[in-house]
């Protein structure tokens, strides 16, 4: 099957610091890929490049055949307007480490902001869909609460519902459980497992190796701005051959 997201020869610099070096990556529709690796290795930056929250200095990222940030005409790439970039981002859902719900909006308003405000779909219908999503993440009773009234785990589940409401082609998760108290991690991972089981295409940056083992189709290991290993969970997690992967995994476990 054709790849949904492709990164090819991706280069990213912060000033003179070469954060992402020649990244080649692809994910097919319905696939779940976990990205693991030490802190500072560029995992978040890679996700942010896919969603165009960072500029890139070389190579390209494409989402469902469209090159991110550009319109292609033969071999010429023309930069897209702010509006067109925003349109491209609609097909990529993102869940952040620290949730970033809109504190001045209720849970329901957070979820319908995108479908109603951006996609201009009928409010009635979007509210119904939002309630269905809330039910799916186990928060049907919190529709009218404000984010500040929810626990971290609940906020993160709302954030997942908010991203899903846009009906994205792919969901990106940047350490979605790292800011949570240990007892709240499970409820978020549970929602993510359900998403994976129902065919959602997902890229998940995480330190939860148990989750990777159980859910991932592929695991990607990043270190110092490079992808240095890719394989099935069994290959990467159970019998790592690369010494850096080996030492990372023994450190995390």
């Amino acid at each position, binding site marked *: 099957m054709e790849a949904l997201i492709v990164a090819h020869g991706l280069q990213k610099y912060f000033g003179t610091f070469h954060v992402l070096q020649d990244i080649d990556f692809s994910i097919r529709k319905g696939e779940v890929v976990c990205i693991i690796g030490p802190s500072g290795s560029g995992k978040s930056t890679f996700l942010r490049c896919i969603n165009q929250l960072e500029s890139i200095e070389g190579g390209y990222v494409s989402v469902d055949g469209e090159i991110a940030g550009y319109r292609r005409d033969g071999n010429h790439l023309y930069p897209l307007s702010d509006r067109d970039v*925003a349109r491209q981002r609609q097909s990529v859902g993102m869940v952040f480490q*620290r949730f970033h719900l809109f504190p001045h909006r209720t849970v329901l308003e957070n979820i319908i902001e995108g479908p109603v405000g951006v996609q201009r779909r009928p409010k009635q219908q979007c509210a119904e869909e939002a309630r269905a999503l809330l039910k799916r993440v186990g928060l049907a009773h919190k529709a009218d609460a*404000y984010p500040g009234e929810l626990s971290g785990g609940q906020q993160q589940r709302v954030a997942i519902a908010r991203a899903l409401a846009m009906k994205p082609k792919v969901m990106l998760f940047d350490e979605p459980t790292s800011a949570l108290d240990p007892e709240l991690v499970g409820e978020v991972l549970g929602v993510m497992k359900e998403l994976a089981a129902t065919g959602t295409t997902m890229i998940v940056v995480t330190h939860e190796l148990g989750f990777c083992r159980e859910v991932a189709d592929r695991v990607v290991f990043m270190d110092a701005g490079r992808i240095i290993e890719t394989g099935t969970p069994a290959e990467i997690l159970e019998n790592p051959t690369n010494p850096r992967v080996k030492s990372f995994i023994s450190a995390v476990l």
Partner: protein
Amino acid sequence: MSDTRLADPGQFVVVPRRKIGTKILALVFITMLVLLVRAFWLGDIAWSYVGENLFSKAVMAGVVNTIIMTFCAMALGILLGVLAAVMRMSDNPVLRSVSVGYIWLFRGTPALLQLLLWFNLALIFPTIGIPGLFSLRTVDVMTPFVAAFLGLGIQQGAYTAEVVRAGILSIDKGQTEAALSIGMTKLRATLKIVLPQAMRVIVPPIGNETIGMVKLTSLASVIQYSEVLRSVEDIYYVNSRVIELLIVAAIWYMAVVTVLSIGQMYIERYFSKGWGATGRKETAPAPPATIEEAV
């Protein structure tokens, strides 16, 4: 040591500290105040003129004009301030430079000078308009009201821009990124997500500036705009009761400022409660019982 340990708590009596310093200080200030009031009372002030003019038609018209100018100039200032702040934070270097230039220019010169420039614009541009479409005589357009409105509003915008910018900067960048990630444009994210949250930081200083504006409008008296100071001046040019009439103006300024200060207090209370995490519970629309359950 053992003495304290064995003591029964009931046997201690706390002797209040004698606040002699405070009492002396209060006495000094009260004396000064009495002397001051006495001086004014015995001074050559014809208080009857104050009473006569306080609610006179001309003075009342001036008060109304002062209030109108305060709100018009602040409205223009806030509009320009938000615009300049958003432009200043844009990715577009042209918009950014325009905003920086605007703030630099209009904060860099005194408000009075700007009023005079606007009012005297006819000296350099006898007519204004779009060549071929229409043309107006500048003296007809640049009335005292228009000159004061532009002069005060535009310079206020330069200050407000900095206040709005500080407010925007106080909001976590993650809010913008979350908004972008659900497909908002940067402009929409700023207007719909960031600015409403920034209000909490922006509103108190704007309240302050509005109070400042009440008094700043007095500058417009110089260019013949009949706000309250101009009104009392017109009266004392005729009857020479300068101090009496200035007292009339002072009373009105203080009245307006007092009313605004009270309003500001309520607005601040509203915004410091709102938006944020738990404080919102009190203002949430749902009945308290439901919220208690939910928590």
